[in-house]
């Protein structure tokens, strides 16, 4: 059953990755007509993603919290016993990276939905980029650990 929650966590992470990457790349794009595929990928309406990113992040985070105890009992101890403490360390950092993005979520939402888009563009761009990079890091690290030892 835990495998179901693990795959669900991965699917929500994927949806989150799509939304936050669309938005994260759009904040660095200079206004210009979008022809190529990667241009259209970035030429999205940034504010429209804020709510989706917040909701998807919270759901993904909650699912992660739910499957974290079995990870501690089953995966962490096995990796530690197998001398793979480096990978355990990677996952520990994933915890903190997840909290970095969680902590930034309210201020991220604030700068997208409350503050006029013409103001504070720098901090809005930075916060969005940090959350995007955090989601990418956690997805890759999560997959590396899951490949090393899954939740069964």
């Amino acid at each position, binding site marked *: 059953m835990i*495998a179901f929650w*693990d*795959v669900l966590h*991965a*699917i929500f992470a*994927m949806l989150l*990755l*799509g*939304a936050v990457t669309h938005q994260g790349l759009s904040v660095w794009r200079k206004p210009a007509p979008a022809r190529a*595929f990667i241009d*259209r990928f970035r030429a*999205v*309406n940034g504010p*429209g*993603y804020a*709510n*989706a990113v917040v*909701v998807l992040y919270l759901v993904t985070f909650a699912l992660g919290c739910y499957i974290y105890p079995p990870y501690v009992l089953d995966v962490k101890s096995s990796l530690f016993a197998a001398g793979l403490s480096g990978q355990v360390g990677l996952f520990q950092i994933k915890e903190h990276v997840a909290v970095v993005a969680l902590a930034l979520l309210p201020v991220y939402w604030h700068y997208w939905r409350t503050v006029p888009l013409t103001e504070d563009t720098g901090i809005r761009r930075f916060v969005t980029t940090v959350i995007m990079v955090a989601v990418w890091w956690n997805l*890759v690290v999560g*997959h*590396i650990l*899951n*490949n*090393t*030892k*899954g*939740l*069964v």
Partner: protein
Amino acid sequence: MSTVLLITHGLVAVALIGAITHQVLALWRTAPATPNTFFGRLRNVRAGSYADAVAILYAIDFLLGAIIYASYRLEVRPYLENADLYIAAGSFETKEHLAALGLGLLPAYWLFWKAPALTNHSTERKYVTLLLAFYIWWNFLVGHVLNNIHGLP
């Protein structure tokens, strides 16, 4: 090395699933998409513009999968059989076959979208795209479940 290839295979699959899901939702949309909602934006795209991306991403992902398939055959399949996890092993077999059938469907898929002469085949285009989307989603889920059971070294 196969971990790097596997993660890359997974990330390309994420991009592929994003593109084909955008396309299928836009293609099968019956009512106009409600603007400014997440689901509305997901469907409110120009479906045709995804064909090249889907075809290229599928080919790349198939190639990556074919490369790491050898590691799977050596490491994971024997583990599944020894552990009597036959449903998992059988599921991965279907993934293998569906990936191949998807490869065979790719020319039809691409041409139904791109060839000007075939623009009037909208029904075929819808079903070919839906079938390819099914292959991609099925393989993505089975791949995740299998990787969770036993990873590549």
